[in-house]
Structure formats: structure tokens, C-alpha cells
């Protein structure tokens, strides 16, 4: 018996549990911050001094020119996400933080790959691009540059496909995310 509020029952100490610290999954945090100088430095500094490691980070404007959105991903198996968000909340320039629910979120990342593409492997790379709905955005005699958009997993998977051909350079934006709209009734 947990001694619910409104009753006279006392709370048995054996029944008390502390909330778990680590979630064990990837988290996407979406932060709305004031568009002011130094805000990114405050966030980056907080992460480094508290020993939190950011996996990806994307910063950009929102529909409101005074507000920017910072989307960052981190590993909930390593970091107590609750502690991360509470520390972020203490920054005066951080307006809102959302720990995005995986099921209710659309998340996308864009990546550019320059792959060495000798004549004999060129067709195969272009085939991969086709399968991944990627675009060839630059071509030279020795290489192809491919633009891929999608979930982090999809881009990871594309990387695995092209790496054996010789991955010359890769640039990834980090994920941006937005909540799915609720089904209309």
C-alpha cells in the first residue's frame, strides 16, 4: 500500500523506489534557445564540464527570428538524460527542451559522400544511390559526390555500402527533428 495522498495510510519505506538513471537508448533533444551571441558556447561548455558527450549537433533558425533550434543527440546508455536536461534548463537562454519520443518524431539528417569511383565501380555506386533515393551532386573522372537524406540509420547503412569502394570524404549535418502532428479527428 503506497499511502496515496488523501488517505491516512503511511508510506512503507520498502515500497519506495528511486527512478532509474540510464535509459539505454539514443535520445534526441530539441532545444529552443534565445538567438543571442554565446548561447551555443554555454551549451557546449555545459556538456564538456559535466562530462556529457554530444553525438550530433545541429543549429538553425526557427519560424521566430528571436529563437533558434538546437537539435542534439546523445547516448542514454552512457548519460543520465534526466540530469542533462535539468542542467540545460538552468541556462537562462534555453527556453524549452523536448526529449523527443522516438515514435512521435520525424528525424532527418543529410550527408554528403565523396566516393572514389573508377569506371568499373561507378555503376554499382549509382545503383546504391538509386536504392537509397540519394542524388549524385558532383561528378569527376575519379569520384562521385552523393547527397543522402534520411534517418541516422539509413545514412549509416549507406556509408557501409560505399566504404569498400573508397570513401574519400564524408560530411554529415547531424539530425534535426520535429514532432509528428497528431492524427486529426
Amino acid at each position, binding site marked *: 500500500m*503506497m*499511502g496515496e*495522498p488523501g488517505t*491516512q*495510510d*503511511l*508510506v*512503507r*519505506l520498502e515500497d*519506495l*523506489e*528511486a*527512478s532509474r*538513471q540510464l535509459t539505454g537508448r539514443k535520445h534526441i533533444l530539441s532545444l529552443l*534557445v*534565445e538567438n543571442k*551571441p*554565446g548561447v551555443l*558556447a*554555454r551549451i557546449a*561548455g555545459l556538456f564538456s*564540464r559535466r562530462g556529457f558527450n554530444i553525438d550530433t549537433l545541429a543549429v538553425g533558425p526557427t519560424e521566430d527570428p528571436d529563437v533558434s533550434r538546437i537539435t542534439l543527440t546523445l547516448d542514454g546508455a552512457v548519460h*543520465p538524460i*534526466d*540530469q542533462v536536461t*535539468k*542542467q540545460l*534548463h*538552468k*541556462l*537562462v*537562454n*534555453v*527556453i*524549452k527542451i523536448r526529449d523527443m519520443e522516438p515514435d512521435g518524431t520525424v528525424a532527418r539528417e543529410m550527408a554528403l559522400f565523396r566516393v572514389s569511383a573508377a569506371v568499373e565501380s561507378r555503376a554499382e555506386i549509382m545503383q546504391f544511390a538509386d536504392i537509397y533515393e540519394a542524388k549524385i551532386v558532383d561528378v569527376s573522372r575519379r569520384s562521385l559526390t552523393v547527397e543522402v537524406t534520411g534517418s541516422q540509420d539509413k545514412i549509416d547503412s549507406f556509408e557501409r555500402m560505399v566504404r569498400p569502394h573508397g570513401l574519400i570524404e564524408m560530411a554529415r549535418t547531424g539530425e534535426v527533428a520535429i514532432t509528428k502532428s497528431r492524427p486529426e479527428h
Partner: protein
Amino acid sequence: MRAADALCEALKAEGVEHVFGIPGGANLPTYDALYDADLVHIQARHEQCAGHAAEGYAKASGRVGVAMATSGPGATNLVTPIADAMMDSVPTVFVTGQVRTDLIGTDGFQEADVTGITLPVVKHSLLVTDPRQIPDYIHEAFHIASTGRPGPVLVDVPQDLSRAEIDYTPIEGTPELPGYKPPTEGNIKQIRIAAKALANARRPVIYGGGGIVNADASEEFREFCSSDRLPVTLTVMGLGAFPAPHEQWLGMLGMHGTRTANYAMDEADLIVCVGARFDDRITGKLSEFAPRAKFVHIDVDPAEISKNVPAHIPIVGDAADVLPKMTREYRALNPDSSRLEEWWKRIRDWQTTYPLRYEDSPDSEIKPQFMVEAMYEATDGDAIITSDVGQHQMWAAQYYHFTEPRRWLNSGGLGTMGFGLPAAIGAKVARPDDTVVCLAGDGSLVMVCQEFATAAFHNIPVKVFLMNNGHFGMVRQWQELFWDERYKSVEMGPSPNWPKLAEAFGWTGMQCTDKSQLRESMQTALETDGPVLLDVHVTKDENCFPMIPAGAAARDMVG
């Protein structure tokens, strides 16, 4: 009006009467404005001490302390007090001059990126980019520094912008900050659950900290503790929030706390933490800390809850709001006090077996603990005591029995040597009618002794009781106990001649080397007008006990 004048007007609108600081090139406009402003400026002799004085002022009074410095080295000298104020949650506003805007980023003379340098150690900082922001930022800084969990806020003002002409009207109400909404009221459902758990606990301990003092909630805390025979302990930051001695008082807890307090934590089944943060000096080895306990954690800063020790019942809120509700809910349950009988029997056993004690000298030698006891008697336990960091600080915490909050000002979190003298100056400015004594260590005092000039110049009659053991005593103790007595760089040598040094600055200098003279010397020092230094020679190699060795568990206390 000139922006620098608006800065002073904004300070006055915030109720400021005193500021501590040092002028320089980049804050000349501000000092020019101070020439006419109705503000008392206390001219420190080192910016670090201007900052600690502002902290002492804030800790003694509960009001926001203000310190000013010029750009570059002036501003970097503020880093230590800013970090100190962050660790101990001291409401402070630091106003620094910055080079002209056209010089920013060019490595100009006396340029330092002070907002960048202080980023990890401020509650917030504001770099002025438009002269109209200057008074607004002062208001924002005061609001942020003094609400929620208090802390330091830096306002960096470029020289040219503070000379600009602006319109200024004081703001009404509190500034609108979209990202700053500090919690105040505790969740009543959580409070009820906590009260019900406490009413069922057989071995409870109430563990309070500096948050109670910051919230001015000592009355509420005492009321709550007296709801039942609840055992009470406090951190070094919380001393005075509950009166010592008291039949429910276990003594301070932590590294140099009493065995009773630490053993009680070790065996407790429910620990109610109010405004404290499970610092490593409290927990010792975290994995073996209070292994049988469930935790109620009340704090105004949600990030403190479950940071070091997972809380079973978290309550976010101001202690002054939460505690009366806890008291009401707890009393409504009519808990059976007899359930605590056995617990108190165990506690009384510890208290009898392990009282705080020391072996007094058989001759005229002054033991440091004796000195604190003499100081307690000479001041009727009624003074504001500041301290530096080290053995003397711990002995003061153990043997000066604080009965009221805001009487014990020390650097608990950052552990800043040299805090005591400037903090005493600030405290005396804030509370001129109170006796303010700095119990100094000789290792610490020499780091800030230029501040003798500040007290003499402004005639601030602080008393410094110097516990002179000729050593960095705490480091010496650690080298003795944990580093095979390989003493390295811990001896202070014969200099300075302290009474002469104090006299050179215009103080009264006194010395005492004989136990039988000590109380009388202290009395004379307290009754002498103006600032007085009393150099007390104490045992050189006394160790501060009991102690939990670093990284050990509470039950493995030594000494």
C-alpha cells in the same frame, strides 16, 4: 542620461547601498558616475577581495552583493570569487569594464574575454552590446542572482557604451526572461508522500544545508524538526539553521563531522535532505553512503535532485514554502513518537561514546580547539564568524556552536583560502552593529593581507583572530596521515611578524602565546576600537579529528 549613470541608478533602484571594487581604465565611466551617485564604494586592494567582500556582504545580510572591476586583469581577478559564489549559491552581481567595442577581439590593451572565461562558473552572464541594455541588464542580473537557487551574475560593460546617452526609467516588476522560471512551490502530493514516509520511518535523520539559510527558512526548519523528536544534522554551509546545542542536534556531518552524525546517516532508514547536495565531503565513498536509507530530497534546484544520490521522493521547491507544508502534513498524521525510542537510544550511545573531544595542553600552550572555545566565550557565541579554509575552519565548525543562521560565513564549496578577511569586511559593512570576527589561518591570511588597508582606509572595525600554527595545517595533516610524513612546502617559516604587519597598515596588532592570557586578549581585541589583529600562537602539529579519509565510508572514520 549617460549609460554609466543609468547603471548606478539601476543599482540604487535594486536597493544597493554599498559596492566593492577597484577602478581602472575600462570602467572609468562607471567610477565617474559613482562620483555623484548616492552609493558607498568600498575600495578593495585586490579585485578577488572585492568579490569575496561582496560575498560576505550577501551571506551576512541575504541581500545581493555587488563587486566591480576593470577589464582584463581586473576582471580575471574576479574569477575566484565568482566561482566561489557559484559553488556556495551566493547572490552576487559582478560588473566588469570591457575595452571599447571597436577593440573587442583585437587583443587590445587590458582586454580579456571575461564572459568567456567565467562561462562555467556563473549562474548567468550578460555582455552589453548596446548602451540601452546597461540598466536593463543590471535589473536582469539582480533578478537572476537573487531568485531560485541564488548565484553570481556577471555584467560586462564596454567602456564606450557606458559613455553613451540613453533614456532610462527604472523597470517595474520583474524582468521578463523567457527561459528563466525558477520553481518556488513544492508539489503537495510529493510533500504528503514524504510526510507519510517520515511518519513510518524508525531511524530517520534530517540532513540540512545552506539552502535553508539561503531561503531564510531557519524558523520553518526548526518548526519542522520539532514536529517530532527528529534527529538533525547540518552541513558546514547549513550551520546555524538549527541551534547547537539542542537535544535533537547530532552535530555537523561529513568529513570532519561528528561520529554520531555520520553513524546516524550510515544506519538511517530515511534521510530527509533539505537544501543540501550530497557533496563528496558529505557522502565519502558514494557506493557505501547511507546504504540502508531511502531519500527525500527537497531542493529549489531540480538538477541537484538525483545528481549524486538517487532520490526516492524528490521535492522541487523553496525550503520556505515546502517546510511549513511538510510540518502540517506530518503533524496531521499524528505519528507515534515512541517508534523513535530505540533509535534515540542508539544515538545517545554514540554521543556518550564518541563526544567531540581534544586533549588540552598541560602547560601554557594553546590548543587550536581551545582557541575556538575561548573565542566562543569571548563573543558570547553571538558574533558573525568568517573563516578561511583548512583546519581552523573545521575546528570553528566543530567548537563554535552556531545558534543563528548568517553568523557563519565560510567558503564551503570552492574551499577558497583567503576568504575570511574580505568576507569579514563585507559582513561588517552589511551589519555594522554586529561583532564580526575573522578566524583566520596563517596560510590563508597572508594571501589577502593587503586588505588590512581596505579595513583601515574605510575604518571597518573587523577583528581578526589568527590561528597561527606556522603551517598549511590541513595539508600538513594529510601529509602526516596519508603521505608517510613526507612534509613538503607546508611550513610557513617565521615571517611575517603579524602584529607589526597589521600595525604597518594602521591596525592594532596584538599577540598571545599563553593559554592563561587568551580570553583576556580576545576581550581586549573585541573592546578596542577599529580593526584589530590578534596573533594567537597555537600547537603546530595538532590534527583535526575525527575525519573520514577521502574516499572512505562514514563508518570508517578515524581519530
